[in-house]
């Protein structure tokens, strides 16, 4: 953890219920600017729910979320503006099917951020070039493979110039041969200093990309440590058990 750097995103005692079942039991958590945090945990422990709370897609029952030091009030109106600063990519392919690749990318910057078209187009082209898809910019999502769609989804989020990117198992529904191309893009982003919060089941990737691993179980943060420590000598029995399940991978 880079203690000297500024905290970008901060969460205090966040609680989240679905109905009367409490899913997140008072999470305390923070991310520094430029830090890459990987969230691990068994299925159903609340990782997706947590990310969705951070993007205002779920209302929280109590606690607070601070971005860049200022509290995001739970009012809906404020989230519309905040979301422009928080990029999110989901597990399922979520491109807009009735728009071409470039239209998908330009929509947010032009309509939500009201930026100038030629400036955004230039940025979009650069980003597409970087993920190797500039020649597909006029294709519709249906013409792309899963891996290509996810790379476009990443570009769409990046083109908003977000302060932080949230990734929720973005490779989980990809064919194995396409996982790599998406992870490579994420890795490059991390190296360029993007602040990232990643949920993934790709353990090797987590180990190589993360500055810090946060292990969640049953709606609580159970363990936080540097990747080497977490993967070689987890401090809790629950983390150990979780890692055992994946051990055949290595």
């Amino acid at each position: 953890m880079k203690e000297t750097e500024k905290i970008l995103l901060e969460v205090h005692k966040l609680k989240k219920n679905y109905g009367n079942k409490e899913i997140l039991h008072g999470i305390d958590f923070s991310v520094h600017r430029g830090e890459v945090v990987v969230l691990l945990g068994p299925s159903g422990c609340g990782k997706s729910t947590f990310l969705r709370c951070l993007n205002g897609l779920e209302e929280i029952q109590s606690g607070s979320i601070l971005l860049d030091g200022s509290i995001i009030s739970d009012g809906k109106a404020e989230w519309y503006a905040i979301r422009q600063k928080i990029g999110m990519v989901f597990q399922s392919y979520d491109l807009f099917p009735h728009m071409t690749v470039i239209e998908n990318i330009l929509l947010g910057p032009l309509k939500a951020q009201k930026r100038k078209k030629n400036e955004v187009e230039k940025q979009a082209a650069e980003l597409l070039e970087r993920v190797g898809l500039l020649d597909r910019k006029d294709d519709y999502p249906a013409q792309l493979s899963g891996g290509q769609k996810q790379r476009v989804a990443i570009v769409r989020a990046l083109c908003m110039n977000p302060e932080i990117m949230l990734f929720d198992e973005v490779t989980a529904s990809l064919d194995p041969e396409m996982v790599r191309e998406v992870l490579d893009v994420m890795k490059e982003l991390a190296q360029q200093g993007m602040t990232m919060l990643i949920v993934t089941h790709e353990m090797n990737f987590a180990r190589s990309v993360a500055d810090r691993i946060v292990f969640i179980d049953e709606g609580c943060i159970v363990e936080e440590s540097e990747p080497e420590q977490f993967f070689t000598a987890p401090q809790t029995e629950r983390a150990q058990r979780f890692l055992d399940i994946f051990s055949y991978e290595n």
Partner: protein
Amino acid sequence: MDQSFIAASIPLYIKAAGLTLNLAFWGVLLSLFVGAVCAVIGYFRIPVLCRIMQVYIELSRNTPLLIQLFFLYYGFAKIGIKFEAYTCAIGGLAFLGGSYMAEALRAGIESVGKIQIESGLSIGLTRWQLMRYIVLPQALAVAVPAIAANVIFLLKETSVVSAIALADLMFVAKDLIGMYYRTSEALLLLVGAYLILLLPLSLFFRYLERRLRNVGLGN
């Protein structure tokens, strides 16, 4: 068959077809408007309006057009509000069609997945922008077959307006039968006239649906 009778009647049918088309056009347009308003009220779950809309939809779907027309034409006249037959006809068609269009649009809107809406939100779009750029375009593509069916349904329903003395196709046919007893000729012309109006429309809609499916929308 009396061919000279048929030839002499054709201009009457052409004129009547004009009125039928005119009524159908405005009826469809207003229906779409009413339907879209209902769909938006439903989508945003606007409290009181939602209730009113439900009552309207039940009334509209569960009463025949003929009764709706009589209500507008004779009913309102009883309490001193007199509408012209033409106004009543279009109003009645919009009242009937509105609920069908609302249903088509609602189904279209519901077919747009939650993930689409969340992706839209996550790039900072407001509710209205979401509706305009993400939900409606996809919903319309899905709703086209149902809307097309409604357009054809409404065009056929215009035949009811002859009951309030508007000179549409049905009226002309009934008139000719009444005056000259040329039942087969008059009915033959009537069927022919509706087919000439409806067939091209049906074919066009079928083409449109195929086009939309090819673009791969709505899935």
